[in-house]
């Protein structure tokens, strides 16, 4: 009997071991902490410029956080709190999925990149379907070297004085100086170029000789060197020059960038339209804008660390086509696309007298990986400049929700980075078909949008569910005899005898 039992237990143990997963295998899906889900290793799509490193287990999170300064240790209440944010989380009842990721070089996955990734740069797909509503949380705020190349409009309209006798150019200069703390943050520098009919340094020197400045005093001197705004607005040319020859040729700026390992951020400031001569109509700008977008796209093919980002700031007048939204991944410009009903309108003295070319600015920013700001008042330039120096982060967390129906089988979550860099990675997540942790509780997060995010449920709640239910069964087990005895005690008492009745 003992031998048979030993064999039986041996068989049982062998079955259990045979059914266990191999934790050392790279392909193995690891359990998601605190859930009944498992997550497979992330797969970076062929052709991605960067590795989207989706952090799937505590080991990876600890490895990533081994450099506390780089990963913003102080931003969390505790190490556990940070790990909590790093680990994937899934809540079946609400269909909520949370994944943390960081960006790293393709050839060196251990070297994380510090990038100003924003929600607009990210797309999330669940089972290859676009998730319309998601949230991007950014963590590990870090300062990274950044060179701002300011392209300041120095055309004749900038020399016009307002009712207070202050020129538009002077207001722009004041706004830039007001934003000095942002654009001259530690490790950053600023190069100022002026453009009108031609692009040059602030004092008119060739762009190859423009030297970036790193102090507020130097910046002020640079800006005050811009005199005599005049000529037409060679806006497209200025952009092409700034993202092309200025960075590629042997210029002071390109040397500065390579010496200091900085990323260039080009900021275009303008109050009008691209315009070369008086008889130019709006539609004439379409092929020129297409060429510029082509140049911009070519410049954006560089490695991510050298890739320029273009922000555009239009000011001084309302947009000529309000509400226009730049198309994604489209650089074939037609006159109708650019001008709408204003194809045949003259620019000089007609369109640029009352409006700014928001279409070109937004389109350039879209292709340039940045953002376009249309600020009718010159005083708002300072805010726009602050936004052109976006905060950079070391890791991110995507949070989205789908119908719980899509948690009824293994599913694929894909994080796609567009615009800023082209990167793409996905993970397979495997829900348990039988078990789940207690349903998450709604939090205040997302309440404003009408869809509260949930905090994943705590497994300890399972005990508080089981114990009362078990207690109920035990009580019911005794209840039958208790009720029976009580009933008999109350109603089966002795009847009074007939003698006593008499």
């Amino acid at each position, binding site marked *: 009997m003992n031998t048979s039992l030993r064999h039986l237990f041996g068989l049982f143990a062998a079955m259990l*071991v045979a059914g266990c*997963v*191999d934790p050392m295998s790279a392909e193995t899906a690891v359990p998601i902490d605190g859930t009944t889900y498992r997550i497979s290793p992330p797969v970076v799509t062929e052709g991605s410029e960067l590795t989207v490193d989706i952090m799937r287990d505590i080991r990876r999170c600890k490895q990533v956080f081994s450099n506390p300064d780089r990963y913003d240790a102080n931003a969390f209440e505790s190490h556990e709190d940070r790990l909590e944010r790093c680990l994937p989380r899934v809540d079946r009842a609400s269909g909520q999925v949370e994944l943390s990721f960081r960006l790293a070089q393709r050839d060196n996955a251990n070297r994380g990149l510090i990038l100003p990734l924003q929600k607009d740069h990210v797309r999330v797909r669940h089972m290859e379907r676009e998730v319309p509503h998601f949230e991007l949380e950014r963590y590990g705020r870090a300062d990274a070297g950044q060179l701002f190349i300011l392209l300041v409009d120095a055309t004749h309209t900038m020399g016009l004085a307002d009712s207070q006798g202050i020129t538009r150019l002077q207001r722009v200069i004041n706004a830039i100086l007001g934003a000095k703390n942002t654009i001259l943050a530690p490790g950053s520098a600023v190069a100022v170029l002026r453009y009108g009919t031609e692009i040059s340094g602030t004092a008119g020197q060739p762009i190859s000789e423009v030297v970036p400045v790193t102090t507020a005093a130097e910046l002020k001197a640079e800006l005050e060197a811009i005199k005599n705004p005049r000529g037409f607005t060679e806006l497209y040319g200025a952009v092409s020059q700034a993202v092309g020859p200025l960075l590629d040729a042997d210029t002071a700026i390109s040397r500065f960038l390579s010496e200091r390992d900085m990323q260039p951020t080009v900021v275009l400031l303008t109050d009008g339209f691209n315009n070369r001569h008086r008889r130019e109509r709006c539609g004439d700008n379409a092929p020129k804008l297409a060429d510029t977008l082509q140049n911009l796209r070519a410049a954006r093919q560089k490695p991510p660390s050298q890739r320029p980002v273009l922000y555009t700031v239009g000011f001084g007048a309302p947009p000529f086509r309000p509400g226009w939204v730049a198309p994604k991944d489209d650089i074939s410009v037609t006159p109708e696309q650019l001008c709408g009903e204003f194809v045949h309108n003259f620019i000089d003295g007609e369109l640029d007298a009352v409006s700014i070319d928001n279409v070109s600015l937004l389109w350039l920013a879209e292709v340039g990986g940045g953002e376009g700001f249309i600020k009718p008042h010159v005083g708002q330039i300072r805010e726009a400049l602050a936004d052109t120096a976006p905060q950079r982060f070391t890791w991110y967390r995507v949070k989205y929700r789908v119908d719980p129906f899509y948690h009824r089988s293994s599913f694929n979550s894909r994080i796609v980075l567009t615009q800023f860099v082209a990167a793409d990675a996905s993970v397979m997540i*495997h829900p348990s078909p039988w078990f789940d942790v207690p349903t998450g509780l709604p939090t205040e997060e997302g309440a404003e949008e009408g869809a509260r995010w949930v905090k994943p449920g705590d497994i300890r709640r*399972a005990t508080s569910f089981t114990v009362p*239910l078990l207690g109920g069964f035990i009580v019911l087990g005794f209840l*039958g005899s208790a009720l*029976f005895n009580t009933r008999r005690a109350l109603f089966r008492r002795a009847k009074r005898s*007939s003698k*006593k009745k008499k």
Partner: protein
Amino acid sequence: MNIFLVPHTAFRHVAVAFLTGAVPLVIWWFLLNWQVVLGPWLFQAGLLWDPMFEGTILFSLMAGAIAWVHISAECGLRRRAIAWKILLPFLAALFSFLLTGVLVFANAVLTPLIVGLIDPSLGEILADPSTATYRFRLLDWIFAGTMISVFTLLVRVGWGFVGGLSPYIPESIAAVFEVPAQPAKVGLWMSLEHLLAGPSAALIGAAVWHILSHIVIKDMYLATALGFTSFGFCFGLIAWGVPSDLYAGWIRVLSSHRFGHRIPIDTPEGGVVERVVGHYPRGLDLWIGAEHGVAELHASFVRATDGAYTVRGLSQHPIKLKRALESVDLSYEPTSPVPLETDLRMEDRVMIGPKKQQTIVEFIMLPKEER
């Protein structure tokens, strides 16, 4: 489980179900904590099961546990020897566990292959261990239910054989292991009940699981807990209620004269038993004085061979059986060749004698161990 805690009321039909319903809840809680709390450590140690085995382990353990407590409950109620209390539930649990495991695993591996030959896309869905749908998981439930049914029934049938073999077992051994002297009968009806109980309970459990996880509250956490609890509960409810042969009928005086005096309608040897109530001074089972309205030989209480209890009126003096909304006059009819009799049920009251001198006795079923 203790027979003294199970009165012979409708409750006895659900007493085992409470037990078989509670056990899956414990198994669920244990497995959930195993996977969630210990999962990461077990994974690192290479001891966390592959997702493909999750259903196999869950159903095997559920089937084994339900089979164990189901047989164990009967062993407890019948006060079997400790060896039987361990061996019988163990056998039922072991075979239910193993066979359920084999079938559920085979379903997980072979069904996608076979279905995949006809419809590759459906085969792919079935091959995904995470797929959680009623359609594709129903077979697992039915396998578990059927295995519990089959092996708990086989253990009961096997116990009957043990009784049949008793003449061939040496007395010393029979005494130690308390081998029953008579073979226990497992009737056809009981066998059918058993065989249908598992699959029926499985269908109910699967339906609860599906409705709660995908239709009503859409919560897999509660769905699995309550699905398996329903499964266990329904199996306990359908398969085997506490039978009447564990109880013996008693007559108990309710009148103040001799209040609480009771006699069993039972003998250790079993068979037909008759107890007579009257004031005849000698040899009556329950003597009650004539001043309390009882005739010399007034009533007899009988247990037949099939275990049914009846009461007969032996006197022309009044005698009535009363129960809720019913009253049966059992006074002897002189023109009739036989006395009137009627079936007895738990807590029936028999009113003996005229109204002003009446003695009331009641019929109650108490555990056979009651003395």
